[in-house]
């Protein structure tokens, strides 16, 4: 019961469309009742009202008992923290309680076919019509749009202003007329991503976060919450050392020293890189816990976390050798097929959520102060 997570799809994401095994639903309900799905959020919205230190104790105790998180998702990690920071009282009262109870699942409407790395170039239009915005356009790379109930979306409300200054941050019900969703298949064979088409979708003006044409500041504030989360997501969830287990199975076939010195060195390199990243994450958390602002080191998590994960996946293919080439059918074990798909999927890590090159640009500009 409540076994630790093995994959992200295995988690409880909540939402109107979710179908749960009974133990998962029960675990969600008992935790949500205490507000412990969102331990640090204020009690008045149904959160746990715990301090950061108390929440850390809770998370450590849960980890010790091998308990799974009762609920995960973009509501808890992205839009919720943004609303707490920037949202009106009304928006907080409407949206936070259903997130905490796992009733509403959120997705993020940012990228568009013509606005990838250049996100501020987005073209989805929203025009005021009385008390409603009418939205037309297309979003792409919307994770889990097919399973989500609401979307936080960036739209263009002033096409004549400088591109960052004509954007508004809206909250949109995915059941609104005019919303249609089409899943995208990736090189790994499946994917959480969708295209989202918006055809005269009406969204009440009351669902603006921040101010009209002030959406870019909201997007940037949210990015801060996203960045720390990403480094954590890409951490390998398997207990022990999966690289070592794989090497012993495919190369040494014993508990002794890994026979291939090149593979041994590559494993060590990846593990040491990960150890340095973990220590840097910890240093950042400890800095915040000590009451300091997070230092500029946080900007490296997305870049280095994804690059390290990708190198680990590459290495796993190298270790498994011919057994890493299977797509399906006989002669390949399930975990070998998963390894291959995970490698292919990992190639997207340095693209999604801001490419590695964009991250390096951000570091060069904001941290190192290099000129434009």
């Amino acid at each position, binding site marked *: 019961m409540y076994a630790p997570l093995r994959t992200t799809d295995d988690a409880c994401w909540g939402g109107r469309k979710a179908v749960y095994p009974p133990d998962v639903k029960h675990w969600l309900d008992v935790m949500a009742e205490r507000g412990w799905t969102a331990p640090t959020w204020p009690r008045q919205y149904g959160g746990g009202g715990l301090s950061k230190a108390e929440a850390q104790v809770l998370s450590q105790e849960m980890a010790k008992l091998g308990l799974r998180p009762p609920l995960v998702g973009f509501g808890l990690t992205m839009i919720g923290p943004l609303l707490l920071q920037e949202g009106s009282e009304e928006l907080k009262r409407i949206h936070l309680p259903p997130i905490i109870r796992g009733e509403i699942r959120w997705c993020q409407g940012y990228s568009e076919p013509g606005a990838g790395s250049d996100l501020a170039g987005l073209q989805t239009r929203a025009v005021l019509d009385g008390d409603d915005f009418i939205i037309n356009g297309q979003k792409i790379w919307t994770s889990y749009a097919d399973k989500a109930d609401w979307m936080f979306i960036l739209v263009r409300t002033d096409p004549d202003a400088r591109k960052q200054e004509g954007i508004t941050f809206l909250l949109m019900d995915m059941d609104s007329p005019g919303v249609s969703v089409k899943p995208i298949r990736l090189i790994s064979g499946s994917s959480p991503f969708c295209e989202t088409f918006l055809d005269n979708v009406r969204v009440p003006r009351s669902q603006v976060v921040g101010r009209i044409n002030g959406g870019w500041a909201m997007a940037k504030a949210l990015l801060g919450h996203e960045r720390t989360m990403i480094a954590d997501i890409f951490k390998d969830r398997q207990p022990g050392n999966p690289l070592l287990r794989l090497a012993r199975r495919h190369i040494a076939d014993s508990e002794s020293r890994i026979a291939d010195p090149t593979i041994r060195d590559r494993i060590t390199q990846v593990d040491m*890189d990960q150890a*340095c990243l973990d220590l840097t994450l910890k240093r950042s958390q400890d800095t915040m816990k000590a009451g300091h602002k997070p230092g*500029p080191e946080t900007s*490296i998590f997305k870049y280095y976390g994804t690059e390290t994960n990708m190198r680990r996946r590459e290495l796993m293919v190298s270790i498994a050798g011919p057994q890493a080439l299977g797509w399906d059918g006989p002669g390949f074990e399930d975990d070998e097929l998963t390894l291959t798909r995970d490698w292919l999927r990992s190639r997207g890590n340095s693209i999604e959520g801001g490419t590695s090159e964009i991250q390096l*640009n951000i570091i060069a500009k904001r941290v190192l102060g290099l000129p434009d």
Partner: protein
Amino acid sequence: MDLVLTEEQELLQQTAREFVTKNSSLRRIRAVRDSHARLGYSRELYSEMAKLGWLGIVFAEEYGGMALGYTDLMVVLEELGRGLMPEPLLSAVLLGGMTIASAGSATQRAALLPPLINGELRVTLAHQEPRGRYNPLHVETRAERSGDGWRLHGTKTQVLDGAGADRLIIPARTGGDVADRAGITLFLVDTQAAGLSIERQWRIDSRNVALVRIEDVYAREADVLGTVGAGAPPLAAAVDRATIGLCAEMLGSMTAALEMTLEYLKTRKQFGVLIGTFQALKHRAAKMYIETELARSAVLAAHKALDEGRPDVPQLAALAKARCSDAFVLIGNEAVQMHGGIGMTDEHDVGFFIKRARAAEITFGDAPYHRNRFADLHGY
């Protein structure tokens, strides 16, 4: 283990930074190099550091120390590294003093530590052997019984701050084979002893290192540090501590090299624009910065592990040294490349960093050595 500095440590860091800025510049480092002086550092500045209490940071108060921790020492070493300062703080404290403090008898501690902490007595460890490469337990130097004492024979090379030292701690073999753990004994030898010759060596980084020839040098029983035949644990611990301290110094040096390079990218123009606007250079500069941040975390964690007396000190020493070696060499190389032609000239200071990077990389073991060690310690 919280990976943050205390307020006191931040203050100490500030004091150290001001001291380095006021008393040492790269112009001084250049002058010391060009003088070809045997000592290769300033005794006056070293005494100043002793007066500030820096030599006593990690030692108990009964010897005149400050009874603080390794993390406090780290912030000082990092600042010395920023200025590429050659004064022998690291060797005196981590190779000399702490070996005496951990392996020595009460008599040895009481006699040697107070003058070491006030800067009068300089002690270092002579462990590097010509064929030893990176293994501190590779000891060919022999010690044979002679009456009520010992006679030592062997050669040690690139002994850190060996020229001008008053005492050497010499690991010698009293039993076992060349690379055996058992059979190593540590001897405290006066540098004036008959049969001992200390010759200054000249390296790319112009730091004080010495070739030590030991030809029938007599040591009394009272000069044995610790137990006969059981010198390997304190020797390995000393090298681990010094490795971690060197990482702090390297962290400061690589940060200074990065800052110097960033300054150049922000002032040098080509094609009518600042070269810092070029994305090819921006991305490389960002990667250099990332390396310094990852290195900083590993170095801080290793010092905290020393402070807490944790059993994973060797693992963290390997983690930090592998990272700092790769990072400092990368930053040294990139710093010269980004400076272009001027970076290749001796006239420009950036050359000091690329040279120091290689010397520090190789001292106490390079990255492949420490990765292999990390893998061994983890049973890969």
